[in-house]
């Protein structure tokens, strides 16, 4: 059966060029970068090259501002917790938004139990963080503001530069979770006044289990894990050499191919959205119509439920998601859609399609061919559907 993968936010395939770059570091150049000998030097050089590629992707001033972690979740934990504990003498207030990734939300909730004050900012119906609320909430106790670059579930891109300006004008520092955005849209940490920025390798077609944290020179954080003091003492543990090499290569590829790929995906995305809205009555786009990631489409269909949509599409070879892969462990609809002001039943009826490098216009056409009848079939089963919509 033809299988069309439209769940790139849940997991991406590794780019073959990345995989090729990694292979020697498993069994030929396997040294420990902390060692002073030949093998250690090889490993250290490889890691430094990777650091440089990542620094270049996000416009960092120096490669030393990048440290490697095990992924986006760890980067977010280290940035927020590491910063909060190191700077608690200056204040105990942290501001974030209500549509952040769970690794930000739950880190903040954890800090709240340790005595920190946390403010979760509201967003508008498109998922844009409210700047006026941000300004109003900032006090002299506010040490950190953490806002995502773009949301992986609805694709909405936040006004990062404006937020950065505002945060710095009030004397706090700015952390950005760029896991969903990096490699898709340009990021410039210097221009956008970002002090800490989280990245994940797999979201850029690199291997899983590796990520990075940008720490602007002068930004003080403390480690959250104790050990041998690798990564400038901020992230102990022997470096994941093949993973780091892979992440570096993925950043390099992203930098050179991002513009063309973003253009291509935006075209596919917009054809798909228009097709869905035109072909299926009472279907709606979730998130912002234009300020959105090139690959992300979140649509909602009244009167039906997301999981039965996913199962039906899967039976026809189309793979997508109902929101974050993490929230499917609970039966609650995702917090992101609820924060947009959607009702529970509207959130339950939403589908997330995320496109990737290998998707084509034919894929879009195929999904648009099968989706209307799937929605119709489920609506015929639903006691909520008004009669005129089925007949």
């Amino acid at each position: 059966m033809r299988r069309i993968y439209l769940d790139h936010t849940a997991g991406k395939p590794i780019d073959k060029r990345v995989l090729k770059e990694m292979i020697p570091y498993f069994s030929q150049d396997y040294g420990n970068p902390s060692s002073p000998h030949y093998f250690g030097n090889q490993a250290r050089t490889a890691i430094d090259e990777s650091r440089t590629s990542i620094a270049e992707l996000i416009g960092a001033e120096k490669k030393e501002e990048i440290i490697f972690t095990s992924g986006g979740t760890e980067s977010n934990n280290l940035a927020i917790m590491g910063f909060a504990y190191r700077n608690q003498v200056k204040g105990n207030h942290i501001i974030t938004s209500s549509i952040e990734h769970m690794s930000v939300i739950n880190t903040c909730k954890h800090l709240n139990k340790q005595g920190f004050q946390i403010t979760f900012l509201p967003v508008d119906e498109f998922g844009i963080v409210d700047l006026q609320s941000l300004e109003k909430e900032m006090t002299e106790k506010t040490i950190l503001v953490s806002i995502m670059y773009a949301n992986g579930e609805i694709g909405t891109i936040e006004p990062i530069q404006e937020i950065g300006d505002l945060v710095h004008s009030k004397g706090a520092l700015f952390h950005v979770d760029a896991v969903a955005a990096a490699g898709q849209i340009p990021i410039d940490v210097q221009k956008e006044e970002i002090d800490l920025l989280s990245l994940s390798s797999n979201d850029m077609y690199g291997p899983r289990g590796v990520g990075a944290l940008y720490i602007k020179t002068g930004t003080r954080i403390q480690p959250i894990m104790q050990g041998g003091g690798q990564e400038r003492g901020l992230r102990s543990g022997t470096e994941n050499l093949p993973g780091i090499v892979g992440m570096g290569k993925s950043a390099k590829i992203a930098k050179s191919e991002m513009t063309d790929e973003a253009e291509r995906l935006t075209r596919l995305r917009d054809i798909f959205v228009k097709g869905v809205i035109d072909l299926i009555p009472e279907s709606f786009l979730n998130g912002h119509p234009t300020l959105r990631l090139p690959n992300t489409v979140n649509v909602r269909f009244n009167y039906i439920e997301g999981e039965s949509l996913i199962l039906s599409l899967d039976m026809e070879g189309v793979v997508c998601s109902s929101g974050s892969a993490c929230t499917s462990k609970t039966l609650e609809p995702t917090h992101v859609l609820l924060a947009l002001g959607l009702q529970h039943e509207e959130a339950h009826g939403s589908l997330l399609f995320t496109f990737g490098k290998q998707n084509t216009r034919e894929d879009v056409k195929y999904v648009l061919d099968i989706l209307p009848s799937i929605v119709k079939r489920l609506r015929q089963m639903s006691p909520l559907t008004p009669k005129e919509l089925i007949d």
Partner: protein
Amino acid sequence: MYSEKVMDHFRKPRNMGEIPDADGIGSVGNPTCGDLMNIYIKVKGNVLTDVKFKTFGCGAAIATSSMITELAKGKTLDEALKITRGDVAENLDGLPKIKMHCSNLAADGLHAAIKDYLKKKEE
């Protein structure tokens, strides 16, 4: 995640639809939680001659609705009232743990429909 039996009932739901002149209707669940089930019954004498369903919900909700109609059809009211949530899950070769509580509402729906019928009969 789901058993082949669940997927079979999801793919080809049995007895899906409304009974326009139903003798009893049971409505359980809540769309806010992601599941809403309507069970319609037709009764002759003491026997369920027809059972149909309409469901808004996940794969498990649809499969359990379909299964209850098969289990209940042709049964007496007393027999049907004895069908439990566990029976429904068992006949589907099990359900994921997380779905056992929320989406396994079909037996409740059937019982509600029978009670609705008995109440109407009294009036």
